[in-house]
């Protein structure tokens, strides 16, 4: 029995080298090729950064290669309507100030989360959206991971699709980034698992019947087959910590914004792919 376990363990370790996907397969969406593998920056603990798309099986991968097959696009369509529909006491829509989403929101996702000089703090895309809603539109803020918010972040993210992740980690970002790194390596919950234990030490290997990815967030918000809806970055972080049987930080908390910045930076060089499709 022991030999059997040892054999399985070494087989599992061998799998560590691959991603499980058909190697060499390229992610091309609507004629645009995405960077799904890139050399890691010098400071990075890994040598290569790999998109979560590479770890999925061909059927799941295919869903993201065509904008009609990608179920996330239903919600993008809904957000397009919301973009030009006035809401709130000021009688304004997103379009009233920002014009066409294709022009004004290009590149926005790639630099998120972004330090807001005026507020003197780090903001996620959701913070920027809710600031518009409350301050400019005089509308109710949306729930962080509610269907309106994830649809809108998907629409905005789509305008950066194919652009490289470009978050900053210097200047006012540095302390946030360091805080995020600390969280990434902290073991949480009864299972005492840090993000790094799965997504740095064991990516490419199986956790039960699922293949661990590097935990990149360049594909968020992500349509998951599991729950058939769009999932926010912070909601995914929440789920991971919950599954360590720990008490997660709140969506929208400073802790998760710091972690978002750090995890985004671990994917520098990858393309923004959102809204992606994952299992």
């Amino acid at each position: 029995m022991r030999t059997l376990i040892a054999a399985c363990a070494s087989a599992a370790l061998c799998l560590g080298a691959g991603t499980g996907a058909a190697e060499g397969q390229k992610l091309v969406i609507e004629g645009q090729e995405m960077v799904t593998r890139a050399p890691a920056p010098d400071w990075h603990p890994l040598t290569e950064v790999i998109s979560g798309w590479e770890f999925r099986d061909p059927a799941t991968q295919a869903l993201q290669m065509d904008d009609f097959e990608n179920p996330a696009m239903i919600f993008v369509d809904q957000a397009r309507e919301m973009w030009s529909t006035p809401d709130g006491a000021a009688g304004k829509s997103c379009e009233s100030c920002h014009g066409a989403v294709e022009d004004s929101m290009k590149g926005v996702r790639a630099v998120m989360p972004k330090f807001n000089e005026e507020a003197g703090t780090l903001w996620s895309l959701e913070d920027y959206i809710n600031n518009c809603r409350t301050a400019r539109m005089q509308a109710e803020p949306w729930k962080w991971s509610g269907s309106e918010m994830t649809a809108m972040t998907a629409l905005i993210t789509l305008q950066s699709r194919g652009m490289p992740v470009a978050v900053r980690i210097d200047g006012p970002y540095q302390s946030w980034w360091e805080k995020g790194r600390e969280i990434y390596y902290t073991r949480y919950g009864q299972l005492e698992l840090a993000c790094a234990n799965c997504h740095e030490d064991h990516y490419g290997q199986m956790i039960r019947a699922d293949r661990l990815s590097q935990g990149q967030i360049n594909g968020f918000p992500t349509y998951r087959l599991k729950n058939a809806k769009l999932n926010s970055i912070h909601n995914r972080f929440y789920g991971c910590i919950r599954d360590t049987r720990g008490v997660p930080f709140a969506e929208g908390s400073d802790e998760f914004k710091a972690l978002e910045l750090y995890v985004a930076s671990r994917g520098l060089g990858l393309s923004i792919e959102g809204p992606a499709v994952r299992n």
Partner: protein
Amino acid sequence: MQLTRRDALMMGAGAVAATLIPAGAPRAAPTLDEAIAAFTGGATPGEGGVTITAPEIAENGNTVPIEVDAPGASSIMLLADGNPNPAVCTFHFGPLAGAQMAATRIRLARTQNVLAVARLADGSYGIARREVKVTIGGCGG
């Protein structure tokens, strides 16, 4: 009569199952055979005449891509023998169908056979089966 331990366990399980069915419970879903018989009018389908394209292993049982194809068929019933209710959907092809094929995405509760029964051009029925393994996700996150 000598009972093996396995027999005893099986009988025990049967007794438990029997007590679990409450009186007046909603009508149980038809069995696979009943669903097929309802579609074929009792005729036993022959092998072939219809093909199923499906992944060997589905990454998530919640969304499994399936395609059925039965040249000349007027309708194709899709079933899954391990779901609580085996019926999945039935395609009916009209005069303007370009081919008697269709693709959709289905839910599979566990590893099981997906079946397609087609009413063929000559009025007979054809059947095909394909096993799809459904994996249990990672940590559930």
